[in-house]
């Protein structure tokens, strides 16, 4: 048997059609994607490579020279308590802000869609925080959350609750920042969900009604949620990434304090690189930050993505 296969001449198989159209498709795809790819390389990849390189140096801002120090920065990172602390804080922040803003965003989008009056008003109201200029908003939040003269605590006092020291105490500062983070991102997610809702064929709701999905909740689970699958994956990914990248609020509101209670990754990196000027070390931090996240997000995306597309 083995001999026979060995001597038999290769049979001419009819040419697969696949290759041609696929090759063409691939070529076109390359062409369409090329500008984006070039720009990604130029404005994202190249700087990232530069950052990675810097991570192996002792470069400090202001000095024109630097030397390579190998993995020294990474070694230092291992024992850096601040880095660990900010890693933890970032995780906590993300664990609060991402789910809360996704759920609220979805809820608000659904509520607004099912309402007939004041849609424009509500959309705008929930969107406004997205458009807010944080430099100014920081002041406002400082005041609103002021432990003694702030309106929030005044209201709490009215109903007999003690007002916490929102931004001042190490115990609450992270939650306060999370709250502000949610405030900022709900509108963002709402818009995405609103856009996602438009892509759902009306026919499916008809079918659902006919099938006896009486309550809006039934229809939500039967049609809306699954059909929003891709949008939800997108929103989730973006929400997590944005939460992990929290920076501005921390910088303008608490500067990481008190005593590092609101120290988050990007703030730490910024602090190292631009305030302490140790760009090399900050770069190493950035690399670790990116490596962890890229792997995590890509895995998550591939895993979930397969499930939601039909």
């Amino acid at each position, binding site marked *: 048997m083995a001999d026979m296969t060995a001597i038999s001449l290769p049979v001419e198989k009819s040419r697969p059609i696949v290759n041609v159209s696929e090759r063409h498709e691939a070529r076109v795809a390359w062409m369409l994607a090329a500008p984006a790819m070039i720009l990604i390389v130029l404005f994202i990849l190249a700087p990232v490579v530069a950052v990675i390189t810097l991570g192996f140096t002792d470069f400090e801002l202001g000095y024109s020279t630097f030397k390579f120090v190998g993995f020294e920065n990474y070694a230092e990172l291992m024992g850096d308590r601040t880095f660990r602390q900010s890693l933890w804080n970032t995780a906590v922040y993300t664990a609060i802000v991402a789910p809360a803003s996704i759920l609220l965003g979805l809820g608000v989008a659904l509520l607004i869609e099912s309402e007939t009056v004041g849609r424009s008003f509500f959309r705008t109201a929930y969107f406004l925080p997205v458009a807010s200029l944080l430099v100014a908003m920081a002041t406002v939040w400082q005041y609103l959350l002021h*432990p*003694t*003269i702030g309106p929030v605590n005044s209201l709490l006092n009215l109903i007999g609750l003690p007002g916490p020291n929102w*931004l001042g105490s190490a115990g609450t500062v992270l939650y306060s920042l999370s709250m502000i983070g949610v405030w900022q991102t709900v509108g963002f997610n709402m818009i995405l969900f609103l856009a996602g809702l438009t892509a759902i064929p009306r026919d499916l709701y008809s079918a659902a009604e006919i099938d006896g999905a009486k309550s809006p909740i039934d229809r939500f689970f039967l049609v809306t949620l699954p059909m929003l699958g891709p949008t939800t994956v997108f929103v989730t990914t973006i929400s997590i990434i944005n939460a992990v990248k929290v920076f501005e609020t921390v910088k303008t509101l608490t500067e990481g*304090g008190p*005593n590092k209670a609101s120290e988050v990754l990007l703030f730490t990196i910024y602090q190292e690189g*631009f305030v302490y000027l140790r760009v090399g070390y900050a770069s190493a931090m950035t690399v670790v930050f990116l490596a962890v996240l890229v792997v995590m997000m890509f895995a998550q995306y591939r895993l979930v993505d397969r499930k939601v597309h039909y």
Partner: protein
Amino acid sequence: ETTLTVHYPMPGFFKDVMDKVSKKFMEENPDIKIEFANPSPTYEEGIQTIMRQAGTSEMPDLTFIGLNRLRMADERSIPVDLAPFMAKDKASMAEQGFSDTILKLAQVNGKQVGLAFATSNPIMYYNADLVKAAGGNPDQPPKTWDEVIALGAKIKALGNGVDSVDFRWQGDDWMFSALLFGAGGTMLSEDESKVAFNGPEGQKAFAVLDRLVKEAGMPVFTKAAGEQAFVAGKVGFAFQTTGALANTIKNVGGKFDLRTAEIPLLDPVNGKLPTGGNAVVILTKDEAKQDAAWKFAKFAAGPYGASVVVPGTGYVPNNELAAKSPEYLGDFYARNPLFQAGLKQMPRMIPWYAFPGSNGVRVTQTIVDNSSRVVDQSAKPEEALEDAAKEVKRLLPRS
């Protein structure tokens, strides 16, 4: 004609001052044109911008650098040494009120890297209404920390959401320095090789902080929160820079009787106070421009500059002539008693200490973090101080 590009931080604060100074300067020096680069929001970002731009064509000719960052800038050879210019100008320098004390503020290891432009020191603000209500005499403000604490406790006892004290410990080590230097202490040993702030002076300093919380019930405020509470009339004493004076006056308006006084010192005899503010620094390496830049630097830091800065901000005059001469600030202080506290403290001003080495800035943060542990009572003052000292020791350059 020479055009100078000038960069400065905190435009909300300095824009009017800069406009005024440069206008006058151009009137006096028609051959020099002043242009402003986009200002930076804070000192911190200002120096970042300069460091980034150092050596590029974008680098401005002059900038204003926070006094505590001069050392760092100098380590990176960013400022031009002013000694040669001063040597040429020796006579007129003294005449224009650049005293040695003042010059020292902008020296790093004896090198004149800039001229102090706007300087401040920490003072005590107080709400006379609250002091009165608590049984104190507003005309006789507390002179020692003990008195502050005692009166603070009484104010706190007034209730109704009123707090005793806001001590601006956040952000940097400036106010800690105020306590430390006020007790006669120093940050490091003379040769900068050992940590010295954990000595008895430092312990006293942290103890004050601790007692402010424990005995006077000082709350944990963020910087902005403290400021807002004070101007709302809900805080008895606020300890912070004179630089905030002008704005505080505006924010308080007629809501209550705002007063200022000298800050209590743990060592009333030898106590010193750190100097905040900034110095004008020449960056341009272009010799032709340098002369013009020097002219401008001298003008800005000179009496005219000071006479513009002081009323607009609350800073203390960085120029002796300006303080005394009727041509400049003259009777300003008589008319504005609130500004006097800072002025009276001028003789005690010493440079805001900048730590050596690449971790210099980070040391500041370490001190702030440990201060915060005291304020939120998560650590005993001795403990926090020791931790700070240990950490700072680690961060100092090993020699």
